[in-house]
C-alpha cells in the first residue's frame, strides 16, 4: 500500500491548508532509533553508578525462614545488601492501582505485591533480597551467595483447585483464594433462554501469555543531594503516576522527583505504573547510598518478575432464534490473577464487556470469579482480556451457524448493530467505571470490505475446492470484534513556537514505539501550517510535563492526541491574533502554511519564528495581562471510552499429518475512526496481529502442578518469527468518533484481539472433520495434532 509521504505546499492563490492528519510522513523518531542516538534506560551511565541484582524465590509457595546475607556482603565489590527487614518502614505492599468499578454486589479481595518477600514467598521469581555492587557481575555473583531457607508449601496452580476449601491459602489475611466475584446482567437471560429456538453450550479455555518486549524492564535511580533531585529513568508506560507514587513513598515533594521514561523497546501493558519492587527499591537505595544505581532485567527474570496475562475457563451458552438472531448469552468464568491483584478487575471486566462484540445482545448474564494462584502476577497484556471474550462469542456464533445451517458471515450480519443504533447502551459497566456505551461504528461495512478482499463468495468453490482436489486442506476464517479504547481520565500537552520557528510539543504520556513523535506532530502541524518534521516532540519526562496518567488501553492517540490538538488550536489563535495586529489584516484573511502566516490575496506574510520573537519582547512595554510567547497548555478528558472495531479474515493451509499451518492470506479491515497516520495505524495492526498469531499458535506459559514455569526462555517459549507472520492486507473504515474533536479511536491493541477466534474457525474450515471443534487457545502443532487424532478416532 502506498501513501502520500511528501507534503506539498498549496499554491498561494489556493489557501487550502495542507493536510497533515491522514498522511503518512516518515516517522520523526526513526532517525534517532536507527542511528543509535535514542536513549534507552540501559544507555544511562553516571559517575559512580552501582548495580543491583535481585535474589528471587525458586519456590512458588513457601515460608521464608531465613535470609543470610553475610557471605554476599563480604563478596568483593559489594556495597550493600538488603532483605525485607532492612527496609524498615519503607516496606509496604504496593498500591491497589485499579479499585473495583461501581458494580452492585461486587465482591473484591485485594493483596498487592511487596518490595521484598517477608515471612512468605508466593510465586517463583518473587524478590527476596537485593545486592548492590560496583558491577552487575559482582552483584550477581554475590546474589548467588545469599543463603535463603524456604520451607515449601503446597502451591495453587489451577483455578478450580484454588477455590476448593482444602486448597492451600495464599494470603493469610483473606478467607480463601477468591480474589473477586462479579456478576453483570442485562435484561433477563433465563426468560430469553425459555423462548429460544436453540441453546448452544460450550466450555472454552483461553490462555494469553508473556508480553515479550524486545527491551526488558530497567531502572536507573540517582539522588542528587545538592540539587535535591531524585532522577529515575524507568521503562514505565506511566512516568507521572510513578513520580507521584515515589514522592509519596520516599517523603519527597513531587517537585524533587523526576521520572524519565526514555525510548522504550515495547511496553504492551506490563510496563504500566506497577510500582514493581525494582522500581520502588532502586530510588530508596540511591537515596540511602547517595549514589546512582542501575538494574536491568534479564530475559529469564522477565518471565517471572514482569507481569503476564493468563488463562480463563469459560462455561458459556448462547440462545438464538430460528433465524440465528441472538436472544441472549450466558457466560460464567474463572480467571487467574496470580499471586497478587494490584490491577484489580480490569482484565476480567474487559472480557465481560468485549464478549458482546459488535452484536445486538438483548439479554446477558456474565459472572466471573477471580482466583489467586502461586504464579506470577497477572496484569493486562495487549488486548487485556478482550481476546478471551471475543473468542467465546465468535466460537458460539460459529456453532450456532453450524447448527442452524446459516452461513457464518450471514449470522454475524444478522446480529450486527446498525449505524442507526448508536450510541448503543449495553447496560453494563466498563473498565473505566463508565457505562458500556458504544459511540459509533459501521460493522456491516467492515464485513463487506473483508468479504470482498478475501473473496469469501468464491473461496469454497474456487481456492478451497482446487486445494482439495490436490489433497490439500485450505480453510478460511472471518471474525468480528470491537475494542473499547481511549479511556479517561485525561492527558495534557503543551505546544510552543520558538523564535527560530521550531515547534515544541510536550506531552506527559510515555512512548514505547507507537510513533507518537510523528502522529502527535502531525496533529499539531495540521493546525500551525508546518510539516510534521518541524515539530519537536518530547514525551515521558515529568520535568517537562507533569500532568497525566500514561500509555495504556489504546488511549494515546485518543486522549493525548486530542490534548495536542487542543493546545495547537490555542497556539493557532495566539498566532492569528498577533499576526493580525502585526500585518494589519483581519484574522479571517490570514492563512497558516509553510511556517508562514500569509494575508490571503496580498502576498504579505510573516514567519512563525518572527511572530514568536515578537511575542517575547526584551524592551518596552506590553499591554497589561499579555502572556509572553506563542505557547499554550491544554488538556483532554473524554466522558467515556470510544469503540474501535474490525474484521479479520484469513486463509490458511493445515497439514493434517504434521499439524503445521501456513497462512496464505491475512486481511484486516479496521475502524479506528479518523486515521491520523495510515502507515502508523497499519504498523500497529501488523504488530498486534503478530502478537495474536503468537497467542493463537505458538506462545504458551506452561506451568507444572507445583506452579513452576517450565519454559522461561525463548528456546521453549515460542514467539512467531518473521516467517510465521504473513503479509497483512489492510483497509480502513472510518466512522469518526463523536466523543472527541479529532474523531479518533484507539488502535494499539486491536490487531491482537480476534486472532485466536480466527485461527479456530479457519482450521476447522480447512480440516472439515465431523465433530472437530477447537475450544482452547493457544494451539500448537502438538495440540492440533492431538485434536485431529481424537476427532478422527471418535469419527
Amino acid at each position, binding site marked *: 500500500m502506498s501513501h502520500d509521504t511528501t507534503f506539498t505546499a498549496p499554491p498561494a492563490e489556493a489557501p487550502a491548508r495542507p493536510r497533515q492528519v491522514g498522511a503518512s510522513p516518515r516517522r520523526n523518531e526513526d532517525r534517532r532509533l536507527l542511528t543509535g542516538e535514542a536513549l534507552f534506560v540501559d544507555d544511562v551511565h553516571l559517575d559512580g553508578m552501582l548495580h543491583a541484582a535481585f535474589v528471587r524465590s*525458586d*519456590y512458588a509457595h513457601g515460608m521464608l525462614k531465613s535470609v543470610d546475607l553475610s557471605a554476599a556482603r563480604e563478596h568483593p565489590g559489594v556495597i550493600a545488601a538488603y532483605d525485607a527487614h532492612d527496609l524498615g518502614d519503607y516496606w509496604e505492599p504496593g498500591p491497589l492501582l485499579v479499585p473495583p468499578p461501581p458494580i452492585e454486589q461486587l465482591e473484591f479481595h485485594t493483596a498487592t505485591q511487596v518490595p521484598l518477600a517477608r515471612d512468605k514467598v508466593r510465586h517463583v521469581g518473587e524478590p527476596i533480597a537485593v545486592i548492590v555492587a560496583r558491577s552487575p557481575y559482582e552483584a550477581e555473583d554475590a546474589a548467588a551467595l545469599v543463603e535463603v531457607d524456604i520451607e515449601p508449601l503446597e502451591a495453587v496452580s489451577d483455578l478450580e483447585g484454588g477455590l476448593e476449601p482444602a486448597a492451600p491459602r495464599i494470603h493469610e489475611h483473606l478467607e480463601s483464594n477468591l480474589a473477586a466475584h462479579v456478576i453483570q446482567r442485562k435484561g433477563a437471560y433465563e426468560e430469553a433462554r425459555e423462548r429460544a429456538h436453540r441453546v448452544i453450550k460450550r466450555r472454552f479455555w483461553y490462555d494469553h501469555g508473556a508480553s515479550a518486549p524486545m527491551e526488558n524492564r530497567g531502572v536507573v535511580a540517582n539522588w542528587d543531594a545538592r540539587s535535591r533531585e531524585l532522577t529515575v529513568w524507568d521503562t514505565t508506560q506511566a512516568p507521572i503516576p510513578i513520580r507521584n507514587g515515589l514522592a509519596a513513598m520516599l517523603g519527597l515533594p513531587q517537585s524533587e522527583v523526576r521520572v524519565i521514561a526514555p525510548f522504550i523497546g515495547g511496553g504492551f501493558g506490563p510496563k504500566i505504573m506497577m510500582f514493581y519492587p525494582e522500581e520502588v527499591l532502586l530510588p530508596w537505595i540511591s537515596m540511602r547510598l547517595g549514589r546512582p544505581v542501575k538494574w536491568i532485567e534479564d530475559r529469564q527474570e522477565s518471565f517471572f518478575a514482569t507481569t503476564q496475562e493468563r488463562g480463563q475457563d469459560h462455561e458459556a451458552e448462547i440462545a438464538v432464534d430460528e433465524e440465528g438472531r441472538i436472544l441472549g448469552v450466558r457466560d460464567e468464568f474463572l480467571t487467574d490473577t496470580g499471586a497478587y491483584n494490584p490491577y484489580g478487575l480490569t482484565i476480567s471486566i474487559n472480557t465481560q464487556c468485549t464478549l458482546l462484540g459488535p452484536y445486538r445482545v438483548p439479554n446477558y448474564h456474565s459472572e466471573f470469579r477471580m482466583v489467586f494462584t502461586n504464579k506470577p502476577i497477572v496484569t493486562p497484556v495487549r488486548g487485556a482480556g478482550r481476546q478471551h471474550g471475543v473468542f467465546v462469542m465468535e466460537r458460539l456464533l460459529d456453532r450456532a451457524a453450524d447448527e442452524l445451517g446459516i452461513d457464518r458471515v450471514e449470522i454475524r450480519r444478522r446480529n450486527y448493530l446498525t449505524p442507526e443504533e448508536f450510541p448503543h447502551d449495553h447496560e453494563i459497566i466498563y473498565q473505566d467505571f463508565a457505562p458500556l456505551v458504544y459511540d459509533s461504528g459501521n460493522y456491516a461495512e467492515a464485513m463487506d470490505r473483508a468479504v470482498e478482499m478475501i473473496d469469501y463468495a468464491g473461496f469454497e468453490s474456487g481456492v478451497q475446492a482446487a486445494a482439495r482436489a490436490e489433497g490439500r486442506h485450505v480453510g478460511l476464517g472471518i471474525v468480528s470484534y470491537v475494542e473499547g479504547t481511549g479511556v479517561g481520565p485525561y492527558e495534557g500537552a503543551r505546544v510552543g513556537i520558538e523564535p527560530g520557528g521550531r515547534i515544541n510539543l510536550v506531552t506527559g504520556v510515555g512512548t514505547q514505539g507507537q510513533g507518537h513523535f510523528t502522529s502527535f506532530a502531525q496533529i499539531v502541524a495540521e493546525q500551525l501550517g508546518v510539516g510534521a518534521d518541524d515539530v519537536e516532540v518530547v514525551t515521558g519526562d515529568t520535568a517537562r510535563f507533569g500532568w497525566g496518567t500514561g500509555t495504556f488501553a489504546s488511549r494515546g492517540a485518543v486522549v493525548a492526541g486530542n490534548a495536542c490538538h487542543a493546545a495547537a488550536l490555542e497556539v493557532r489563535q495566539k498566532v492569528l491574533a498577533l499576526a493580525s495586529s502585526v500585518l494589519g489584516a483581519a484574522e479571517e484573511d490570514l492563512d497558516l502554511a509553510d511556517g508562514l502566516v500569509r494575508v490571503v490575496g496580498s502576498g504579505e506574510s510573516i514567519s512563525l519564528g518572527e511572530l514568536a520573537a515578537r511575542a517575547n519582547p526584551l524592551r518596552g512595554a506590553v499591554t497589561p495581562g499579555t502572556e509572553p510567547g506563542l505557547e499554550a497548555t491544554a488538556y483532554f478528558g473524554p466522558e467515556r471510552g470510544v469503540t474501535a472495531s474490525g474484521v479479520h479474515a484469513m486463509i490458511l493451509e493445515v497439514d493434517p499429518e504434521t499439524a503445521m499451518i501456513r497462512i496464505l492470506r491475512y486481511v484486516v479491515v479496521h475502524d479506528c475512526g479518523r486515521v491520523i497516520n495510515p502507515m502508523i495505524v497499519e504498523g500497529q495492526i501488523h504488530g498486534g496481529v503478530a502478537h495474536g498469531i503468537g497467542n493463537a499458535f505458538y506462545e504458551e506459559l506452561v506451568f507444572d502442578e507445583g506452579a*513452576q*514455569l*517450565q519454559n522461561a*526462555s525463548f*528456546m*521453549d517459549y515460542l514467539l512467531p518469527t518473521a516467517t510465521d507472520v504473513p503479509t497483512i492486507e489492510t483497509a480502513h473504515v472510518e466512522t469518526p468518533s463523536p466523543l472527541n474533536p479529532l474523531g479518533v479511536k484507539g488502535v494499539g491493541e486491536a490487531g491482537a484481539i480476534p486472532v485466536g477466534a480466527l485461527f479456530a474457525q479457519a482450521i476447522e474450515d480447512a480440516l472439515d472433520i465431523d465433530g472437530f471443534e477447537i475450544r482452547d487457545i493457544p494451539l500448537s502443532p502438538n495440540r492440533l495434532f492431538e485434536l485431529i487424532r481424537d476427532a478422527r478416532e471418535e469419527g
Partner: protein
Amino acid sequence: MLIESDFTFDLPPEVVYAGLLDPDILASALPGTDRLELTGEDRYEGEMEASVGPVTAARFSVVVELKEKVRPESFDMHVDGKGKAGFVNGIAKVAFEEADGGTLMKYRADLQVGGRVASVGQRLLESVGKMMSKQGLEAVRRSLMERQAPEGAGAAVAAGAGAATPGGADLTASSQARPPATRKARLGLFLVVAILITLVMLMLR
C-alpha cells in the same frame, strides 16, 4: 517430574542389591560428588557439581534420607537438593524383583524440580534424565559382571546369606557390628540418589 523406568540385570536380586550398596561399583558411574558425609542415622549430606557440554558447572548441596529399607527388595530415598540454579526434592522408590534368574529393577522418582533447572531445562529434563539413568545403570551392570567373573559363586552365596535375615533389623544390627562396611553401603545408596539428581542438574546452565 516423574522419572519412571526399569532395568534388567543378569544376576539375582541379592547380588544386585548388595552391589548397588557398594560405592566402588557406583563411583565410576557418578562424576561430580566431592563431599559426602553421614550426618545422622540414614541421613547423608553432600555437595555435588554437575557439568556436561554447554552446561557450566553448577554446585548444589543435597540431603538424602533412606527410608523403608527392605533388603533385598526395595528402598525409598528422600531427596532434597538445593543450589544456585534451583532445587530438586521428592522421593525415589527403587524395587528389585527376580525375573528369569536375573533382576528387574524398577525405579520411580517423583521429583519436584524448581527454579532455573525447571524453567530452562524442562524441555530435555525427562528424556535426558531417562537416558542418563540408563547409562549409569549400564556402568553398574558392567562392574557387577566384571566382579562376578573372577569371584564366581562365592559372592553370590555371601549376598544370599545376608538377604536371608529380615532387612531392616539386619541392617541396623550389622551397622553396629561392622560400621565401616555399612557406611560404605550407605554411601552407595547415596550415589544412586545422586545419579537421579545429577540427571536433573545436568540441564543447568
